[in-house]
């Protein structure tokens, strides 16, 4: 049984690969990718039996039909494929649901067993599957704000901490398990790379660790638990680095460019993973940082804050009256400094607050380190583009003029066009526009900037920036180029915001960052925020209705996000916001 099902999935994938090579009708490729997902990617998940049988037979029927059509102008290759295909089709048709299920389990089994064997993990496969198939409980910003707001001296403080810890104790294993499964089922061999396997194993260790803690009942246990979490939050900074390396090694290994549909599938998986990871981290960080009593000893570099003393009025991760202007100023200073270190010059970053008077006093509740990450990333991109264009320009004028005065050639910050950062607050959103004159990119490649497996920098720039640290990401250490923008957008969307780039080829790029104004108590959440991925379901793949700002279209045609239009994984679109949380967190027994 299992042998035949393995064989089956092998055949499927080889067939699909062959079809990739030949197919040029988009509908066919789409059919195939739906087949890929239904046979390999979602394989481990339990599904309705009937659904399954129907879909597999329909699928094979459709493929047969298409193949027939295609065969009409057949070559030798295609005939070969047809033979392959009909055997697959008959296999899919002939096998009962149980076999398909078997093959499902098989895939996860294999991957997990590989790792478990290598590293001797103590989490069993059944446990992992059991945990990962539970829906996780979505939290909103207002929930998080509310449960962290207890005054350290009030008598409510400790019971609240305890409830939070108990909630986390139940919630985190589910989320960690889901991330582990995410990693283990990354498509196209990404899950087989050493880096990714290592992280997956790390997740499995966390899972074990969290589950080793007893459900916190006393202050001591709660303290221990929080300390344990701290280690986890600190530890995982290496993850984007490792995944970037994994993606890079995959690219090197295959030599040829990954074709677009495979790339899309990979992007989708990575987006989902990082999106969910943002939620997981935020929960843990928030719990650690909202520990008022121990705040002075809390390591604030945990979340990348260097000037920790300034952040005293935060509640956990959340700041009541986050000032976008101050954050932008700080980020601008930092970027200008590191830009000067790297290139010797830096464009001036002008920060302008254009908020109309009537909104000037309104509060903006947000997570400052998210905001800071996004701004820094955007400003760095703008500065880099400006300098690179400027350098080109200098060379051009030199050639042109011929005799060149040494002193004129000395570039100063003033000779670079400045980067403008404009902030405007409105009733709904805080909007931040970052406009540079760095030459822009063509419309057709703008989409690529949102993909994880992409880097626009040449090799020599790479090495130069590595030396000075300008190119490194804000995660500890490594050089994670290409991840900055997509991660920034994940942060922006997390609480219902949006990040969009508009390019004017030959002129510059304008980045628009929309962040919902949440207000003092963050209780009157706009609809958009209520539907944000972070709020509803942290394993959501971002394929819900996203406000692109200017377009009706969701999904592929919009060209905004290459991963749109796919299937959602494991947990359903749960709308059980507070009830479940209350059940767990407020249960006094």
């Amino acid at each position: 049984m299992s042998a035949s099902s393995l064989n089956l999935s092998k055949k499927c994938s080889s067939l699909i690969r062959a079809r990739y090579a030949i197919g040029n009708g988009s509908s066919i490729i789409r059919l195939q990718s739906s087949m890929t997902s239904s046979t390999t990617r979602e394989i481990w998940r339990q599904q309705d039996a009937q659904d399954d049988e129907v879909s597999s037979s329909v699928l094979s029927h459709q493929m047969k039909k298409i193949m027939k059509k295609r065969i009409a102008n057949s070559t030798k290759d295609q005939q070969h494929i047809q033979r392959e295909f009909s055997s697959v089709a008959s296999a899919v048709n002939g096998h009962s649901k149980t076999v398909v299920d078997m093959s499902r389990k098989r895939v996860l089994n294999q991957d997990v067993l590989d790792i478990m064997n290598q590293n001797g993990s103590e989490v069993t496969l059944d446990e992992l599957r059991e945990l990962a198939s539970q829906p996780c409980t979505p939290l909103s910003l207002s929930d998080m704000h509310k449960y962290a707001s207890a005054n350290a001296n009030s008598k409510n403080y400790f019971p609240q901490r305890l409830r939070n810890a108990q909630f986390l104790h139940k919630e985190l294993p589910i989320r960690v398990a889901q991330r582990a499964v995410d990693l283990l089922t990354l498509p196209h061999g990404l899950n087989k790379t050493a880096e990714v396997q290592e992280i997956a194993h790390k997740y499995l260790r966390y899972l074990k660790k969290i589950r080793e803690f007893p459900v916190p009942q006393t202050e001591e246990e709660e303290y221990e638990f929080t300390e344990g979490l701290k280690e986890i939050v600190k530890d995982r900074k290496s993850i984007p680095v490792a995944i970037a390396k994994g993606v890079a090694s995959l690219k090197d290994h295959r030599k040829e460019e990954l074709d677009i549909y495979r790339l899309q599938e990979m992007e989708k998986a990575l987006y989902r993973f990082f999106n969910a990871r943002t939620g997981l981290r935020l929960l843990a960080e928030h719990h650690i940082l909202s520990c008022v009593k121990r705040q002075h000893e809390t390591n604030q570099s945990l979340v990348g804050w260097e000037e920790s003393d300034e952040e005293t009025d935060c509640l956990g991760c959340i700041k009541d009256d986050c000032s976008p202007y101050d954050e932008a100023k700080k980020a601008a200073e930092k970027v200008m400094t590191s830009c000067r270190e790297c290139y010797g010059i830096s464009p001036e970053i002008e920060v302008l607050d254009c908020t109309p008077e009537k909104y000037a006093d309104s509060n903006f509740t947000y997570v400052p380190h998210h905001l800071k990450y996004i701004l820094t990333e955007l400003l760095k991109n703008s500065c880099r583009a400006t300098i690179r264009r400027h350098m080109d320009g200098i060379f051009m004028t030199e050639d042109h003029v011929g005799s060149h005065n040494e002193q004129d050639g000395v570039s100063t910050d003033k000779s670079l066009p400045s980067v403008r950062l404009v902030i405007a607050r409105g009733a709904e959103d805080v909007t931040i526009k970052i406009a540079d004159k760095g030459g822009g990119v063509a419309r057709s490649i703008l989409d690529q900037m949102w993909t994880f497996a992409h880097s626009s920098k040449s090799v020599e720039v790479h090495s130069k920036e590595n030396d000075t640290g300008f190119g490194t990401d804000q995660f500890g250490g490594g050089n994670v180029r290409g991840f900055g923008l997509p991660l920034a957008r994940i942060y922006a969307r997390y609480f219902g915001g949006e990040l969009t780039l508009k390019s004017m080829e030959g002129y510059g790029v304008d980045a628009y960052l929309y962040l919902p104004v949440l207000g003092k108590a963050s209780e009157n959440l706009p609809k958009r925020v209520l539907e944000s991925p972070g709020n509803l379901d942290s394993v959501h793949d971002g394929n819900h209705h996203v406000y692109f700002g200017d377009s009706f279209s969701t999904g592929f045609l919009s060209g905004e996000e290459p991963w749109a239009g796919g299937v959602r994984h494991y947990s359903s679109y749960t709308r059980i916001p507070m009830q479940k949380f209350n059940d767990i967190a407020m249960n006094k027994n």
Partner: protein
Amino acid sequence: MRCIPESPFRSLGQTSGNLVSPNYYSQRNSFSTVQKEYGQITGVADDVARLIHKHASRPQTGASLQTLMKTGRGEFLHKTYDDHTHDDNSKLATDKILMQVASFLRHELPIRLAHRILDLDRVPHMKEMNSVKQVRDLYVTSFLELLSVEKQIQNMKEEEAFAAILESIYERHASVLVQMARGAFELRAAIRNGSISHDSRLGSSSGRNSVKFDAMEDTHAFLDRFYISRIGIRVLIGQYLSLRQPPVENYIGLICLKTSPYEIVKRAIDDAAFMCTRKYGDSPEVIVTGKLDLTFPYVPTHLHYIMLELLKNSMRATVDWHGIDADYPPIKVVIADGKENEDVVIKVSDEGGGIPRSNMKRIWSYLFTTADPAIQEGMVAFNENVDHSIDSPLAGLGYGLPISRSYARYFGGDLSLMSMEGHGTDAFVYLTRLGNTREPLPI
């Protein structure tokens, strides 16, 4: 055996055959059933229905800006004629071009019209509106009229007759935009009155008067298809008819080889300022920067329509936001271009207060409008055969932006708006520089 004239547009491998979705036909049951239903619903005789279905089953053929230019120059004559030597100055060559294009249109237009007629029959709710029915009848009439012409246009006499027919069709269809807008208005009214019940897809209405137009994606998609296809048909006819006119320097038919965005923007600024001043007594200054000496081949009327619409919106927003008699911040227009670019990009930025993000969807909607009902009533009574002019009957109905976007998208470009609530709005117009993108052909 069908006799299709060798079309110049086919030559670049640009037939849209692969754009026909596989389920296109299965959507409509079997042919005979559909035909029967069709006859009953519409009251059109069976053979007309058959003709329409026959033509709708053929693929539409797309034309890029470049193809239009090359055909107009006679570069594709060898596709049709054995003796294709031509001299730019010879009358004969021009005649050949005209006959070639006419033959192509005779083949292509019935197909496009047939696609639209079937689409008009399918769209839920809209098809029951009186204005929409009239539009449909208009399309059927023109469709039959085209079929009455011989398939191959062999000599100049036939060509002349064909041109006369196209001219009358072109004029007759000028009011279609207004008529469809009226159809949309009737649909709104019908939903309000409750004479059309909401089905679940339209979204449940919380109150009697709150109609969720945003949720009517079907209707939106239909209107988008309809308008963009209409632009295509009108460009083809317009190009042909203007090829018949005495040649103008730098023009091939409608296409100006040296379209200067700066010149067009300047003209649009004058028009918009005139309209703004007439209404408010003053208008904000407009500063144009960037590459002012740029020229590229395009259809100037399209670009003018888009720019006028954007500038009008920006001026109105600026005046409304800052109040009459205030000092207005200038509106900034940037024209961007490099040497190797694929696009010409024009940005229009104003500081007119912007739009909240949750409303951004509505500005692209055909069904939502902030215009006061009086204007709409006026529009319904309005029956002027104008497509777009300064005093368009569509003014204030919120049609300008979506139609502008269709114009931009028609030759492969795009239009998008980014707004900063509380500050201002930036509009980005992308136009393909080489004009080698195939026109979009909705099914």
